[in-house]
């Protein structure tokens, strides 16, 4: 297999990252140049800049199907539709995080914060395209290291600092485990390219045990990033302590990039035997990770949902909800090995897309509310529907989407995931998922109930919504609503095409 050396294609493949890096540097420069009074507009530069990057990316996107299997820049990057769609959601998540940052008084005027945030987005974006162990590792660390910083960015805030330290120790530890696993994989095959690894691994005469252990080590890192049980412990603490825009970023961009890498890595490095052209004597390790993913999925969904039932802090509740959603997503990941029609991967992609929008929406409202009232307690949301009907409606939409109730996009997402599981002969997994959806309903609706049914002490005093918020929440809400109703088909088509790219192994 040779890697393409097409210069133009190579530049195009990393153009979003290049543009974002320039944007980050520009922000640092502006931070120095601009007067203090104007610095809040840095958020616009960052947010709108990122949105523009998506625009450029989509305009210059390769026509569907044309370059779907191109490995570029020495095989570091695979420029395919999967990378495109995940990049789009990663950058979207970043843009929304930037916009909502403009409502946090202690961060809104800090160009360095926006710059570091954008670097995190660059990392996540590279994760969705990485096709080489080295690239994947660097991208993973790029996201992680910048996020450690961002989580602890509020210096005087004990909770932020604590969350930063915890996230750092947890992340550094798991990345060491992952790195060890990667070093073993490299050692066993002498290859670092993900798409070559699979073939070599399948035809080698390595002892199975060695491969299995390295797979387990690598899986820990991925499980940490998407906060699957039992590698989730950081999630509630960090979500609660981090500045809320960063919580948004953690649950959107960082997670999306990891999911893309996870699917690409598992499917290419440990492909089901059928995908390699059914050669004689090819070893099939896919059963290992499929089982692992299925089990992680079940425990994540169940524990996430059950523990969310007893939370009183909204950010913590959403953290446990994130863990549960990691479980739902893993349902789809478990389905990708057996299913050549790419339904599982398409379902995961769609789900992730809607999840990015939904979480950005939910956290956006939480930030606004926290700023207005200084509280993140669920009980304090009482009477929000009377104070700010639009805000309450946005939050309700987000919660409905998370709970999987139409017309929000979450319904379609869950439907696709469960269908993929059924098609992959994992009916039991789908059933566990459905039971979990029922449990989940309860705590999401409690928040809705509190907002609409209970009266707060400050009834009638509206929560102020700034312009950047109107944009951020508007984009997210429109996405959640449209992708759940009339825009479902285009997005599903895109996701399906992206998913097909996953199955083209070189």
């Amino acid at each position, binding site marked *: 297999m040779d890697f393409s050396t097409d210069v133009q294609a190579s530049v195009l493949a990393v153009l979003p990252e290049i543009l974002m890096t320039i944007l980050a540097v520009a922000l640092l420069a502006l931070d120095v140049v601009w007067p203090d009074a104007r610095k809040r507009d840095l958020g616009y530069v960052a947010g709108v800049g990122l949105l523009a990057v998506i625009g450029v990316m989509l305009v210059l996107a390769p026509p569907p199907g044309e370059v779907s299997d191109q490995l570029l820049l020495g095989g570091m990057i695979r420029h395919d539709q999967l990378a495109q769609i995940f990049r789009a959601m990663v950058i979207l998540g970043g843009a929304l995080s930037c916009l909502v940052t403009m409502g946090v008084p202690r961060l809104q005027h800090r160009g360095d914060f926006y710059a570091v945030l954008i670097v995190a987005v660059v990392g996540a974006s590279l994760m969705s395209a990485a096709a080489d162990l*080295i690239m994947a*590792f660097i991208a993973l660390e790029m996201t992680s*290291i910048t996020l*450690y910083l961002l989580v602890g960015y509020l210096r005087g805030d004990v909770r932020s*600092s604590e969350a930063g*330290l915890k996230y750092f*120790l947890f992340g550094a530890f798991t990345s060491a485990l992952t790195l060890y696993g*990667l*070093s073993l994989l490299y050692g066993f095959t*002498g290859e670092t390219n993900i798409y070559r690894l699979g073939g070599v691994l399948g035809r080698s005469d390595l002892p199975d045990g060695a491969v299995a252990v390295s797979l387990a080590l690598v899986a820990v890192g991925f499980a940490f990033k998407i906060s699957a049980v039992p590698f989730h412990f950081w999630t509630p603490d960090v979500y609660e302590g981090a500045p809320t825009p960063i919580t948004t970023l953690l649950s959107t961009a960082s997670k999306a990039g990891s999911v893309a890498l996870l699917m690409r890595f598992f499917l290419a490095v440990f492909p089901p035997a059928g995908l390699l052209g059914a050669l004689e004597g090819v070893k099939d390790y896919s059963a290992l990770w499929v089982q692992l993913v299925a089990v992680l999925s079940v425990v994540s969904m169940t524990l996430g949902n059950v523990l969310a039932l007893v939370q009183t802090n909204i950010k913590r509740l959403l953290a446990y909800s994130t863990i549960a959603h990691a479980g739902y997503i893993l349902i789809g990941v478990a389905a990708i090995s057996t299913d050549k029609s790419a339904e599982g991967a398409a379902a995961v992609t769609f789900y992730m897309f809607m999840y990015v929008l939904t979480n950005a929406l939910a956290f956006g409202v939480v930030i606004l509310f926290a700023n207005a009232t200084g509280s993140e307690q669920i009980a304090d949301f009482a009477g929000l529907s009377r104070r700010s009907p639009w805000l309450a409606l946005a939050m309700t939409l987000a919660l409905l989407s998370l709970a999987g109730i139409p017309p929000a996009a979450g319904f379609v997402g869950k439907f696709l995931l469960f269908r993929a599981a059924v098609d992959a002969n994992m009916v039991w997994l789908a059933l566990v998922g459905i039971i979990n959806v029922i449990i989940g309903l309860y705590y999401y609706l409690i928040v809705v109930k509190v907002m609409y049914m209970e009266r707060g002490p400050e009834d009638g005093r509206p929560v102020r919504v700034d312009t950047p918020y109107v944009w951020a929440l508007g984009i997210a809400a429109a996405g959640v609503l449209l992708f759940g109703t009339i825009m479902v088909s285009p997005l599903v088509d895109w996701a399906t095409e992206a998913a097909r790219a996953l199955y083209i192994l070189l």
Partner: protein
Amino acid sequence: MVPLWMYLLVAAGLFSIGMYGVLARRNAIAILMSIELMLNAANINLVAFWRYNQPAQVGGQVFAAFVFVVAAAEVAVGLALIINIYRQRRSVVADDVDLLKW
């Protein structure tokens, strides 16, 4: 030369020692040092595998070099976070940092 597995054995030992340190040391900086040990173990693996499997290529060395970079960045960030915590609490004992729970 020494057989390859001996290097791997040293790496495994270093990795396990580092892991023990992460799990058992109280001081956050000590935990950070232990993590460095784990990263070095991975590096020994990479370089040893490179030397024995494909010395004509550069993959393993490059990988190891990038691990250096990442480790440097990680240490810088980690120490910044730890110093930050220290300023607030006058303590860097990891177990004491448990405001956020449940």
